[in-house]
């Protein structure tokens, strides 16, 4: 028994149907904690090198952490890892909802799935049983229909699901896994991996919550955070009122060029006020919902009848979706954007990669690289809202132009040629999120180096930390140096980013929501209260470094080198209008210098980004060399 945890990892072989349970030693839990820690360990240790991401030998690692299953705000999240069909490297992605807590209450800290079922199946995980069930009758259904059908199948209304829709079934390279229909394990294509295994869903309900060592402390911390949350300046009641993408933030973000428009080529969208979260809730809002045990309730629910029907249970658009399907595609039709978000949720498509891939298609169309004969008559110009929705349908079904766009912008541009690479906005194959790195230049470094590709949740958003503030005090505790302008790319800025990146990897091991403003010290206190360990902030940051290093080792083994730690060409150029149109591009020399500094700070060779032998030893990762999973720098 591992205190505070379930103490078990479920293993499922879809090829043989074999189901087994591992009970790792407490030492393993202490070293890797859970979530991203487990993902990073098992990917390197167990997934064979050089396989295709759609091979049965790929594994889906669905991992929880020590916080999950305990009644605290922001505790109900899961982390999924696999070999990515987008990058051919490390995929790691988190989501909230209810199903993570159910899996923990069913008695498991992680589920590792390998192989491929002969016919579609879903995995039912409860405290009474684990079984593979026929999913032929659900294959082709949306994630919402899937949840309803499984509830009927099991006779348990409260069953929760982590499922794919047709996007995952058709192995769209950026297909995602939806927790509870509307919480996306968005990035890296893990839903496509599930589809390649004929695995439709993981369904779970459980009755045995994990027992913390100090339940009084857990309760007190939860009560305190529930009261204090609304006073926190950054994460205040605006999240509870409209979720992410509040009017002020979006209008301001557009003003300074942070909000992409027209495939990151313009970033000056006068219609922004029409597509904000505020507008969403005013015009179509049906209330706010939350994840298990969380009082923040930052999840929009929306309802539309005309011109497109949007089901109240499908979930509403976050900031990323509002912008990726909105201004990035030149679209200012809010109802269409909301419908697009529903389709993304139902079909299990990452809304960021989806929007950027469609925008890529739009820019190719407007520049004559593809025409009506390629799109089957679809007018794929920027601003065509109906065209955007039609493109989503085609992508999910891999039909016509949708089959090309389903590959992601890297592969689509390689296939098209004709200088379309210029319009492919990605890092390592992962489409860039809706925070422009030309504005948030420290985040640009994280986009470049993060093993999972451009990830806006893996680093510090520069504009939040330009002054001394309670927010900056939080990150001082992680190792940040001093507040700096957003466009500073010196050593202190890199140190700030490194500190927050370490914390982000630790946070993704707990697996904790970043919208609940626990300080790192408080999160460490939670680990202590759950496990009884004398866990420290130092240990937490070391875990962060361990995870980042494991991700890098995995990528290096798969042939992804520092040559891919670069932003696309567009990021070194100004935009066509708006705030970034004069001197808007990143400085390549400063970026290169910043990336090299980051490598050094992480204990990796500054020239190659390869982790040093001494760093591996310090992190307890010598086994990666000894067992020949990785190479190291001297």
């Amino acid at each position: 028994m591992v205190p505070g945890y379930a103490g078990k990892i479920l293993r499922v072989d879809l090829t043989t149907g074999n189901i087994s349970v591992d009970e790792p030693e407490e030492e393993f839990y202490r070293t890797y904690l859970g979530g991203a820690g487990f993902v990073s360990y098992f990917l390197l240790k167990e997934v064979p090198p050089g396989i295709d991401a759609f091979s049965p030998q790929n594994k889906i690692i669905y991992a929880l952490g020590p916080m999950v299953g305990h009644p605290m705000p922001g505790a109900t999240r899961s982390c999924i890892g696999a070999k990515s069909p987008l990058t051919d490297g490390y995929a790691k992605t988190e989501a909230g909802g209810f199903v993570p807590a159910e899996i923990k209450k069913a008695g498991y800290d992680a589920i590792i799935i390998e192989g491929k079922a002969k016919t579609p199946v879903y995995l039912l995980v409860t405290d009474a049983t684990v079984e593979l069930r026929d999913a032929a009758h659900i294959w082709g259904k949306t994630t919402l229909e899937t949840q309803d059908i499984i509830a009927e199948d099991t006779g348990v209304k409260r069953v929760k699901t982590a499922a794919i829709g047709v996007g995952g079934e058709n192995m769209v390279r950026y297909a995602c896994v939806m927790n509870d229909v509307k919480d996306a394990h968005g990035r890296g294509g893990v839903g496509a991996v599930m589809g390649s295994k004929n695995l439709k869903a993981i369904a779970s309900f459980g009755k045995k919550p994990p027992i913390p060592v100090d339940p009084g402390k857990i309760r007190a911390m939860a009560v305190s955070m529930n009261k204090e949350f609304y006073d926190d300046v950054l994460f205040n009641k605006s999240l509870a009122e409209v979720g992410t993408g509040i009017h002020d933030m979006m209008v301001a973000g557009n003003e300074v060029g942070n909000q992409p428009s027209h495939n990151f080529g313009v970033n000056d969208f006068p219609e922004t006020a029409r597509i904000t979260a505020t507008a969403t809730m005013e015009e179509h809002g049906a209330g706010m919902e939350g994840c298990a045990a969380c009082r923040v309730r930052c999840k929009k629910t929306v309802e539309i009848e005309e011109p497109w029907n949007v089901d109240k249970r499908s979930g509403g658009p976050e900031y990323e979706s509002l912008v990726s399907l909105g201004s990035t595609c030149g679209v200012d039709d809010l109802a269409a954007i909301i419908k697009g978000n529903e389709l993304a949720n139902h079909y299990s498509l990452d809304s960021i990669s989806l929007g950027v891939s469609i925008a890529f298609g739009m820019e190719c169309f407007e520049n004559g690289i593809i025409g009506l004969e390629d799109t089957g008559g679809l007018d794929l110009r920027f601003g065509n809202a109906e065209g955007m929705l039609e493109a989503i349908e085609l992508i999910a079904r891999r039909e016509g132009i949708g089959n090309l766009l389903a590959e992601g912008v890297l592969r689509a541009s390689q296939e098209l040629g004709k200088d379309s690479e210029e319009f492919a906005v990605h890092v390592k194959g992962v489409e860039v999120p809706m925070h422009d790195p030309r504005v948030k230049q420290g985040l640009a470094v994280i986009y470049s180096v993060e093993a999972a590709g451009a990830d806006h949740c893996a680093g510090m958003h520069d504009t939040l930390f330009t002054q001394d503030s309670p927010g900056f005090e939080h990150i001082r505790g992680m190792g940040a140096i001093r507040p700096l302008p957003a466009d500073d790319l010196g050593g202190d800025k890199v140190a700030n980013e490194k500190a927050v990146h370490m914390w982000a990897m630790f946070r993704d091991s707990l697996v904790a929501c970043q919208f609940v403003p626990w300080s790192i010290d408080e999160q460490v206190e939670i680990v202590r209260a759950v496990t009884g360990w004398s866990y420290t902030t130092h240990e937490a940051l070391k875990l962060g470094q361990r995870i980042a290093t494991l991700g890098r080792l995995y990528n290096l083994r798969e042939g992804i080198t520092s040559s891919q730690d670069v932003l696309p060409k567009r990021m070194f150029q100004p935009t066509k209008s708006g705030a970034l149109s004069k001197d808007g591009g990143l400085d390549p020399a400063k970026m290169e210098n910043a990336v090299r500094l980051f490598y050094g700070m992480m204990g990796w060779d500054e020239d190659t980004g390869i982790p040093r032998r001494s760093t591996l030893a310090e992190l307890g990762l010598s086994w990666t060399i000894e067992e020949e999973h990785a190479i190291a720098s001297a």
Partner: protein
Amino acid sequence: MKQPPREDKGRTTAMQVDIELIGSLREYLPEGQKRAVLDVPAGTTVREAIQAAGVPAGRTWNACVDGALVYEDTELTQRDCLIVFPPIAGG
């Protein structure tokens, strides 16, 4: 990103700066007001102008002039239009 060269709109001993507070920062202006004109000395910094508008120290903000992000110690010039907003983030 290099800050664009600031157009000198005419230095005087004192100057006027237009300030617009966005969102929750508006609570520091009189009811219903979004903007104010500040009479400030030449060379006033962004921090000083924001404090002159009543926003207390410790409140986190971002600010821009002509779309370009500006910071605490940036010096303002005559008739700059300073827009101050809650921090840009999102998920």
